[in-house]
């Protein structure tokens, strides 16, 4: 394993910000830590970088304990959330900083800076002042700066956090491509699931300093570990249920569950696609409380008479108006029994 955290614990005052976290990152792997703000994900990065000493546990890089290794000798890269470019240096000065710290000569530095600026799509930007860069350009310069000393592990703290949406979506694809091409090992943290799923080979969901779930984006998306993860991923249809055979008893009535689901009391997730609209006199009777246009589909909020609201996804053409009465049935393919 390139990076290994073993029972890593950090306490601020009495509160454990990292609570016995165990995490492995293999070489060339892209791992994305996903969690709400305050879940401890930034502290995780700071602990790996050596900016935050551990109260308990160990950080291993290439199998070696890093406790006695100061920040500047760990050979990891960290891209800060708001980039933290050095304001008094130009772009080349920023990108070449790490190389200079590692004793690279002037010509070697110039060559590598040019190469990196090319790589991040800013060829010839070397003499520009940092203050003259747009947000997206700053992000690219920060990336080039972090990559320049060829760190064993590149860490990204909310790499695209401050950029606008379209730029973010474009950059995340670029990043993934770039890391794949360079074979970079990446540990990123973000609160944006879209970003995490698009970027990562593996997603780690954090909650209150602990790891709630770890898996490929598809695994996490399809089977969130628990109600917290499901809600954090944006799923609304999460209820307590009692599974009995091939159906579960829920406030919405009987909901079919996939074959082989665990039996007994569990949390049940119905993805919006699994909420099918039928005629008003069939199935669960609901009123359309709200509808939101999502581009490819319409998200509906359906209010049953005596049960929590349901979120449904439905084709634009078939979408009912607000206030209309509809019936609801459930599709077992989009139902998951959690924990």
């Amino acid at each position, binding site marked *: 394993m390139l990076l290994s955290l073993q029972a890593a614990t950090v306490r601020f005052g009495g509160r454990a910000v990292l609570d016995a976290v165990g995490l492995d990152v293999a070489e060339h792997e892209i791992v994305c830590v996903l969690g709400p703000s305050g879940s401890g994900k930034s502290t995780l990065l700071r602990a790996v970088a050596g900016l935050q000493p551990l109260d308990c546990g160990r950080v291993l890089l290439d199998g070696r304990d890093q406790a006695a290794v100061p*920040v*500047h000798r760990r050979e990891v890269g960290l891209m800060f959330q708001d980039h933290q470019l050095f304001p008094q240096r130009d772009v080349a000065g920023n990108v070449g*900083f790490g190389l200079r710290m590692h004793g690279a000569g002037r010509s070697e530095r110039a060559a590598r800076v040019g190469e990196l600026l090319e790589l991040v799509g800013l060829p010839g930007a070397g003499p520009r002042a940092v203050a003259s860069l747009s947000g997206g350009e700053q992000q690219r310069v920060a990336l080039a700066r972090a990559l320049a000393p060829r760190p064993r592990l590149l860490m990204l703290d909310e790499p695209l956090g401050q950029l606008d949406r379209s730029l973010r979506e474009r950059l995340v694809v670029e990043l993934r491509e770039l890391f794949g091409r360079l074979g970079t090992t990446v540990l990123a943290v973000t609160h944006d699931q879209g970003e995490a799923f698009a970027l990562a080979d593996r997603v780690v969901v954090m909650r209150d300093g602990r790891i709630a779930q770890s898996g490929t984006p598809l695994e996490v998306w399809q089977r969130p570990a628990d109600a917290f993860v499901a809600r954090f991923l944006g799923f609304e249809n999460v209820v307590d249920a009692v599974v009995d055979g091939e159906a579960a008893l829920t406030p919405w009535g009987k909901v079919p569950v996939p074959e082989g689901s665990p039996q007994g009391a569990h949390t049940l997730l119905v993805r919006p696609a699994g909420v099918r609209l039928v005629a008003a006199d069939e199935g669960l009777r609901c009123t359309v409380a709200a509808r939101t246009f999502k581009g490819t589909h319409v998200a509906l909020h359906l209010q049953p008479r005596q049960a929590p609201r349901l979120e449904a996804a439905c084709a634009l053409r078939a979408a009912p108006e607000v206030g209309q009465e509809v019936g609801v049935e459930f599709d077992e393919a989009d139902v998951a029994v959690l924990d």
Partner: protein
Amino acid sequence: MDVTRTEVARRKGRAGSRRGSAARLGLLTVPVAFFAVFFAYPVAAILRRGLEADGAWHLGPLTDVLAEPGIRHVLWFTTWQALASTALTLLVALPAAYVFARLDFPGRHVLRAVVTVPFVLPTVVVGTAFLALVGRGGLLDELWGVRLDTTVWAILLAHVFFNYAVVVRTVGGLWAQLDPRQEEAARMLGASPLAAWRKVTLPALGPAVAAAALMVFLFTFTSFGIVQILGGPTFSTLEVEIYRQTSDLFDLSTAAVLTIVQFLAVGAILVVHAWTVRRRESALRLVDASRTARRPRGAGQWALLAGVLGTVAVLLVLPLAVLVQRSLTAPGFGYYRALTRADGGTFLVAPVDAIGTSLSYAAAATAIAVVIGALAAAALARRDAGRLVRAFDALLMLPLGVSAVTVGFGFLIALDKPPLDLRQSWILVPLAQALVGVPFVVRTMLPVLRAVDARLREAAAVLGASPWRVWREVDLPIVRRALLIAAGFAFAVSLGEFGATVFIARPGNPTLPVAVARLLSRPGDLNYGQAMALSTILMLVCAAALLLLERLRTDRSGEF
């Protein structure tokens, strides 16, 4: 969002810095050693001279001296005139700090330098200039028959004149770098202009205002030259009293006791100051100072600008103009020509040689002060500085608070015999002047160093910079400007230093202020005129140094 983030980062920083403290103590060893040898040792020598007899210490003199009504009167006057001077200075100079920071008008940079000139003038010259303005036969006396030299107002006005620049520089310098958008954000949230200023800008300025007020209070509390000249027999500060006891009455015991009293008072003020300032300092959003100033808008801003310009004209320029005018009253630059002659027995050399002496001493003193001060500031800047380190912060200010006379006299009696016999060495004067200059360097650099975003340092560390390289690569470029300002101040202070230098400057190599004082102490129009002429030269040297500095400042600001 930003604030909480900074807060979190700060707490994290504090948790994780045991490794740094050894390095920090290393940084501190040089300043500590410097202060031990050149400050603590001479002061101890004075105390021993004053309080020790027959191998035992006696506290009797302390109570005896404090019981004297005359001394009590001096104490009382010292305190209240310092408070009044500080309040008056803030009242007059804070609007000016705003004007110079936020309003853009033609000649702003030159005027900023002009405003600083009074501060770097020797106190003796300030006193004489005000005497020429408001004293007997002075300009006001000639015009309207008004004399203020018998009232405390002459002292207070001279103190405002002298300390105006402290407030404008300390507060205005930071003000110019505060992001105006912070205030705009408050306005958008419904705050009136005044409320926005009070809730956003004032708290950010708080440490700078406190630092400036403290400096002004210390300077006026220990005022020597000004009170000596304008106070007459009626008004006497502790400092003047110490000088009188030492030099006129040769009563070292009483002088030593008064020094202890002053030490205690100043120490108490500094401890309180260190507490309050540390608590309020926070990471500020600093922006390019050249971009925050705007052309004045509206009647209010124009009136403020006019008021500040008027104050500068009457309070700062007029006394200097009178000084220059008096130096020219002899036909054909007679007083200036007289300076080149080494006759009359007052001097072994021509008074004009004092210019070269002063410049070389000041250069040496500046180099010492900047090295010592920068090392100390670097160690003190860390938010996680331990209690010991913070105590040293306060200790650094002591040479400012303790009387310059004490420093000079202490040098004279402590450094004249083995193990440290520097009596014949030219370095003695620069050392004393550097001692007075170091607090300026530290005070100028600390706020800027503390405002450097800790994450910039972290970014450099992650990229492979060792702690020393982090300081050189991240802190230094950002504080380079502060360092220049600090160096300029140290230089100017050294040029104008009088109280200590007068004791230790060798007769053959007087500095400019010492030469002025020597001329002033002689009767006759020629000596008075020569003093005026030499003061004018000193004023011009200081002004030139500061204008040069101002140039550097504007040239470099583009880098930020």
